[in-house]
């Protein structure tokens, strides 16, 4: 629970070792990284922000592996769909849906 947003470390505050300037999609805030003492946070690292504190360092390897899993599932599904497309049923269904809401 509780809102957590990923951000990327832009700058480490040399005078305040527990503070870092973090970018979230172009907006920036100073975030307390005191809870990540043991993570040795560096510029460019991604962290999870919650109420002005960094709660964890995002693990890029884990992220990649997970995405790969999703992509594999996606590719397999796409193949199955290709097979299905010889029948025209799906196209007909989609035509009933208004343009703007077509997925």
């Amino acid at each position, binding site marked *: *629970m*509780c809102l957590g947003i990923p951000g*990327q470390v832009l700058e480490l505050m040399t005078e305040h070792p527990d503070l870092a300037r973090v970018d979230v999609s172009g907006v920036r805030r100073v975030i307390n990284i*005191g809870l990540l003492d043991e993570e040795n946070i560096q510029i460019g690292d*991604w962290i999870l922000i*919650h109420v002005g504190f960094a709660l964890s360092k*995002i*693990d890029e390897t884990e992220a990649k592996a997970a995405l790969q899993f999703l992509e594999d599932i996606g590719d397999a599904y796409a193949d199955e769909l290709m097979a299905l497309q010889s029948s025209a049923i799906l196209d007909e269904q989609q035509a009933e*849906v208004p343009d703007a809401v077509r997925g």
Partner: protein
Amino acid sequence: MRYVDEYRDADKARALAARIAQLCEPGRQYKFMEVCGGHTHTIYKHGIEDYLPEAITLVHGPGCPVCVIPMGRVDDAIHLAEQSSVIMASFGDMMRVPGGSRSFLDAKAAGCDIRMVYSPLDALKLARQNPDRRVVFMAIGFETTAPSTAMTVLRAARDGLTNFSVFSNHVTIIPAIKAILDSPDLRLDGFLGPGHVSTVIGCTPYDFIAAQHAKPLVVAGFEPLDILQSIYQLMVQLSEGRSEIENQYSRVVAWAGNAKALSVLTEVFELRPQFEWRGLGFISHSALQVREKYAAFDAERLFELPGVRVADPKACQCGEVLKGVLKPWECKVFGTACTPETPIGTCMVSPEGACAAYYNFGRFSRERLQQAGSPLAVISR
């Protein structure tokens, strides 16, 4: 946005949904509880249910910090805010939560000095800026938020501030899950574990769910694909007859959690013998109070509080909703007497509350959804 956009991809969602549908045993119904209100919010905000077959029902859990605050505690907080010396600092989430007769917003309109903050550190800043006032931080939240409050108390102590205190309403999630598992009303097939709580407590505290209750739990992230994937993992476990603790949100959650956060939390807070949860009643060892050592920063010790227990409104069925026994729209006042504009229960106030999420985002029937072009409608045919 990195680590966000990748997890909102509709193509991957359709693929996952197809796999999930394939895993459904014909004739079997599946009930999963998303423990966390953040998940509830994501589910409705992105329309995730549209991807789920009718056999799968998501049941909303008690993990909404705002929803579970009993009215008496809100009244106590307003009592604090009414002291002319006090500046009450609060997250925006709390502003509309009704106490026995009014909310922070009402109290503010009536003259109390209540300020919205983004971080407990902002409350500390207020204290420094207003040396002749007493700043009380309305501390709410589960284990996700409590370390931040604790860090703030430690900093106030280090800097020798004498006009800062916290009114702790921090709660812990495990006792709430236990209460639900002990409830006779509800048959659940598995849990989506609260991802952000787990950044702090890690994944091992859920072991008893698998071990003692033989239910699977997948610690889930907060983007829609995270949730869909977690459901998929639950379905795989069930289809394989397993009940284990898995971590879908491994990019953010370390299995062991955050040791520093836990130590800070433990330094400042200790478990209360018991604490009242809105709708759920008193649950023992389910909440955090400031330790004696930091008494100087504990609003409960510094101020006299009425401490009156206020009974929930009769019409309110938040308890049942928080336990997952009732769907929001099954509450009799849902959407008529109880709306986000005129909330009766807390679940209608917090954007993480099941009633609010359902009212704001999900209030239409499956039939209508299908007319509007639900992806499920497309997939399942």
